[in-house]
């Protein structure tokens, strides 16, 4: 594929995929846990939270990157927090304007996006050191990874805990939902399961690559 895409595009794609896969904020870096468990009782809520976080992450990454030469080093964390809080307030009003039902479902966790360690971490580690274009792409990648993670949680919890996906009943009326899945313990269990899956998959890949590398060396 890199033959077809130019070098610059490959870099950008890599930058994007970095956030989705290798440094998935939820499953690899284990950040942004509070909203991840609290609102993922249904797939719709999970995706909405993912979108809201994406909005805040991208906008704040953009602004921090644009202002990166201006922000004094000594108070940079405080400045990032203020910028992030600004966009969280904006998204708070946007969601209220779009749908009050969604706002009620997501509850306090919209405002709690401001303390999502993922966003502050990105501002400090990346957006403050890179030009706006790269910062935005990286932010989008992280957001996509986070949203995928949230969706994975929300979908499993909704399917097992309510027998529906996106509100559409999957198993019919006789299905006895596994209610614990939409309760707090279920959130912990499902996340633990996904981490297990990820960990197992990572090891399998490592073993495969080691075997291939060994075979290539022996060949």
């Amino acid at each position, binding site marked *: 594929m890199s033959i077809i895409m130019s070098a610059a595009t490959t870099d950008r794609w890599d930058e994007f995929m970095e956030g989705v896969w290798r440094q998935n904020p939820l499953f690899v870096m*284990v*950040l942004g*846990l*509070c909203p991840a*468990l*609290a609102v993922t009782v249904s797939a719709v809520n999970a995706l909405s939270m993912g979108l809201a976080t994406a909005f805040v992450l991208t906008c704040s990454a953009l602004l921090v990157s644009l202002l990166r030469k201006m922000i004094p080093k000594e108070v940079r*964390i*405080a400045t990032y*927090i*203020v910028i992030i*809080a*600004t966009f*969280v*307030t904006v998204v*708070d*009003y946007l969601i209220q304007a779009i749908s009050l039902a969604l706002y009620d479902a997501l509850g*306090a966790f919209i*405002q*709690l996006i*401001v*303390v*999502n*360690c993922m966003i*502050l971490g990105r501002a400090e580690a990346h957006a403050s050191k890179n030009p706006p274009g790269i910062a935005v792409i990286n932010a989008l990648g992280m957001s996509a990874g986070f949203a995928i993670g949230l969706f994975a949680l929300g979908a499993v919890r909704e399917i097992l805990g309510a027998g529906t996906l996106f509100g559409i009943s999957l198993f019919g009326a006789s299905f006895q939902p596994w209610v*614990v899945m939409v*309760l*707090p*313990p*279920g*959130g*912990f*269990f499902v*996340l*633990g*399961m996904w*981490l*297990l899956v990820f*960990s*197992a998959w990572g*090891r399998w890949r490592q073993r495969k690559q080691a075997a291939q590398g060994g075979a290539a060396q022996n060949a």
Partner: protein
Amino acid sequence: MHESAAQIFINAFLANNFVLAMFLGLCPFIGVSGKLETAAPMGAATTFVMLVASLCAYGLNLLLAYFNLEFLRLIAYIVIIASAVQLVEMVLKKYSPGLFRALGIFLPLITTNCAVLGVALFQTAREYDFIQSITFAVGAGAGFTLAIVLMASVRERLQLSDVPSVAQGAALSFMLAGILSLAFMGFAGLGG
């Protein structure tokens, strides 16, 4: 609402434990609960910050409401919390440098602890008065400390057990947290 102070405390401490039922404060919960000797002081420091944040949030909210500046609430709260954490850091550095070093990076991370901001936001949303707010903050902090200490105690024991290596690390912690959360569901309805 007309909840008594005792009800609010029991609620935040046990029945609706901030960590295991409300999903707040998870990052430090997973991050700091490896060792018991850091878990307990972390809980104490967080409780103190919650108390300060609660007091300030109560006062700030009155001010913001008076001047009709409610849309600045989030920024104001988070700035107060960051300042409170700075204060705790300075005090600890001066009066207990050993503890300061032991907590290390996790002390400034109290700022991004959603439990602290959660206390401020919830007490505003539920329109608690002064006494109710204080009890809520103390209860939440106690609940957080309880959860983190329980978690640390079990995790220390687990290090000596035979766990399949694929499950070690974060996956195991979450399974453990799930079981703790399930246990805490038994407190539902306590305190009326």
